[in-house]
């Protein structure tokens, strides 16, 4: 355990976790930048293709600032990132930041709609599975979730498009372009199918993890003690199980939200949705490195921050840490 610096145990744990999170983000920014630079595959040469004379390559490198030492460029880039300036796209010279924030908003909207449905359904189903442990509903939920985990996102997506959008006329197929402003109720119906695809993708994971977390608690000795001394089941759940279950459930939810933000990449490509995932994949295809680095940084950042929140949330909700001896 780190030194306390005069803080309580919870506060010092939190400070430690948040510090680790920021260190991770910094490390990843360095990895993204320097790693990508060190790898073979020179953009200037790719960009020029057949007409790559040494002078033309040198010109392009100068124009893109590739001739400066790597540390200078990294620090410059990092400074830009911190102020929201991600540089210029190599492919079309547009500002990466402008595109990124517009698309990030679209992506977060889609992810939020999916999360609003996925979280209550999966936590609820996880509890149902525990309640009917080793009985029929548990087996059915188990097999269905196994199937959902094994299905690739694009199969679920095209299945939905084929049956719902085309055969039954429910929901919209690709391309899905949200009207402005993005964050409006009218767009919720528009993104129904991509959101449903995302829900299926995370639902199974979240449900299985919720089930495991609650079972873990129900198996512990103090629950058995409470049952044996004749406390009725509802009281056991309310007073003994629930306070201890909140922490792992918060953890599960935050972890899966992180997973959802990444799952968005494939779903956006399926539904031709103008979000960050689509932007990212297009940039990877043409090797537009500033865009790739920016998107990679934002995705990794959101992922790490959500993971950090998972840690922080579960620490805050843990009764054993909140009431130290």
């Amino acid at each position, binding site marked *: 355990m780190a030194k306390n610096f005069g803080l309580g145990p919870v506060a010092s744990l939190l400070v430690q976790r948040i510090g680790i999170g920021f260190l*991770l983000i910094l490390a990843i920014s360095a990895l993204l930048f320097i790693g990508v630079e060190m*790898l073979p595959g020179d953009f200037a040469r790719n960009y020029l293709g057949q007409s790559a004379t040494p002078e033309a390559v040198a010109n392009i490198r100068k124009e893109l600032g590739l001739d400066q030492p790597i540390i200078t460029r990294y620090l410059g880039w990092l400074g830009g990132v911190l102020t929201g300036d991600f540089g210029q796209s190599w492919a079309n010279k547009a500002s990466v930041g402008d595109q990124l924030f517009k698309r990030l908003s679209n992506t977060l909207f889609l992810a939020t709609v999916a999360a609003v449905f996925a979280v209550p359904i999966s936590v609820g189903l996880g509890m149902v599975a525990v309640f009917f442990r080793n*009985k029929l509903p548990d087996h059915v939920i188990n097999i269905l979730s*196994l199937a959902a985990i*094994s299905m*690739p996102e*694009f199969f679920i997506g*095209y299945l939905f498009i084929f049956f719902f959008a085309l055969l039954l006329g429910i929901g919209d197929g690709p391309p899905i372009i949200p009207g402005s402003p993005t964050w409006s109720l009218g767009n919720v119906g528009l993104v129904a199918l991509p959101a449903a695809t995302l829900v299926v993708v995370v639902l199974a994971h979240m449900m299985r993890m919720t089930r495991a977390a609650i079972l873990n608690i129900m198996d512990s000795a103090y629950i058995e003690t409470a049952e044996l001394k004749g406390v009725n089941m509802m009281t056991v759940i309310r007073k003994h199980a629930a306070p201890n279950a909140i922490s792992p459930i918060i953890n599960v939810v935050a972890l899966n939200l992180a997973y959802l933000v990444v799952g968005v990449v494939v779903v956006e490509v399926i539904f031709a949705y103008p979000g960050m995932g689509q932007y990212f994949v297009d940039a*990877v295809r043409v090797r537009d490195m500033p865009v790739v*680095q920016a998107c990679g940084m934002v995705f990794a950042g959101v992922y790490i921050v959500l993971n950090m929140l998972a840690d922080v949330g579960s620490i805050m909700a843990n009764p054993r840490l909140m009431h130290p001896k």
Partner: protein
Amino acid sequence: MSLFVFGYFTLLIAGSSAAAYYKRSEAFGVLFTVTLASMLFGILWGQVAFWTVGIIFASLAAAAGLGYCFRAYMVMLLPEQASRFMKSAPLTASFGLLVIIITLLFAIFAEQIAPFGERQIVGDVWEPATAEFLLGTDNLGRDMFSRLIYGAQTTIAVALAAGILSFSIGMFLSFTAAVVGGWVDQVLSRINDLMLAIPTLIFALVVLAALPQNIFVLVAVMAVIDQTRVFRLGRALAIDIVVQDYVEAARLRGEGWFWIIFREILPNVLTPLIAEFGLRFAFAILFLSSLSFLGLGIQPPEADWGGMVKDNKDGIIFLVPAALYPGAAIAILAVCVNMVVDWLLNRTASLKGGRG
């Protein structure tokens, strides 16, 4: 009320009653739920609903039957020890095993089984299914069924290569970390933590953007990203064993860490590792397919399942289901691998008192 509807309900109700009479509560639960649900769906959507439920039910029953027969067959054919092992397989696992074996055979003997060539253009674009073209033709007029078989070959070969490579790297590094300990363990574990903190797909996309596109790079990238998961498990398992007395004895005997890894640790963690390998393989199939679907995996004209979905996705709008077949193939194979893994994991859990 047509004869079909009448027969449908008679069968279901008779089935539920029989199940209830013989006190098979699970079967009864399933049958009677289906009966009640059919009544509701029947009112809402008419006979189509009965056909849908009927077809789903029949295919599930067929799968269960096949799984049952295959298990009995294997128990009969295999030698003593293996047959006892096979007996413990639930129906899902034995059906999964059967499908995996069939897929592997298709992949290995693709050239002999496929009626047409991988790149041979045999008809019009997106022809419907006929006796000649079992699943119709694709976006360039190639036979979908043949390409599905060749796709199995490519997808499984690449996923298997990536799985084996990631497994070897992960095992080697994690056992080394556990046995050598000290700063080696610290460095390896921290690097691993860092890599685990980056989402896999994002990691792969960034790296693939910078590296040249070929199959070796693809396998290497998948393996390096996936070995982090193997490392985490391997280290956790090995750390438990390294502190055992027999490892201590081996150390005092003067054995090197190479011996300790292969002779002391490996035999003791084999079962959970086999299950983990199955999981990694299923993950590799899904991951490879996702990359190919995004156009960054295996490059055309090579047939692979994810890429075939990408090639045929525009047909969906014209109600051509060509893109759904390879998607279904991926899903079925991954479900089957997962069902087998589930069985193996449950076995290790029950052998090791909940750990594994």
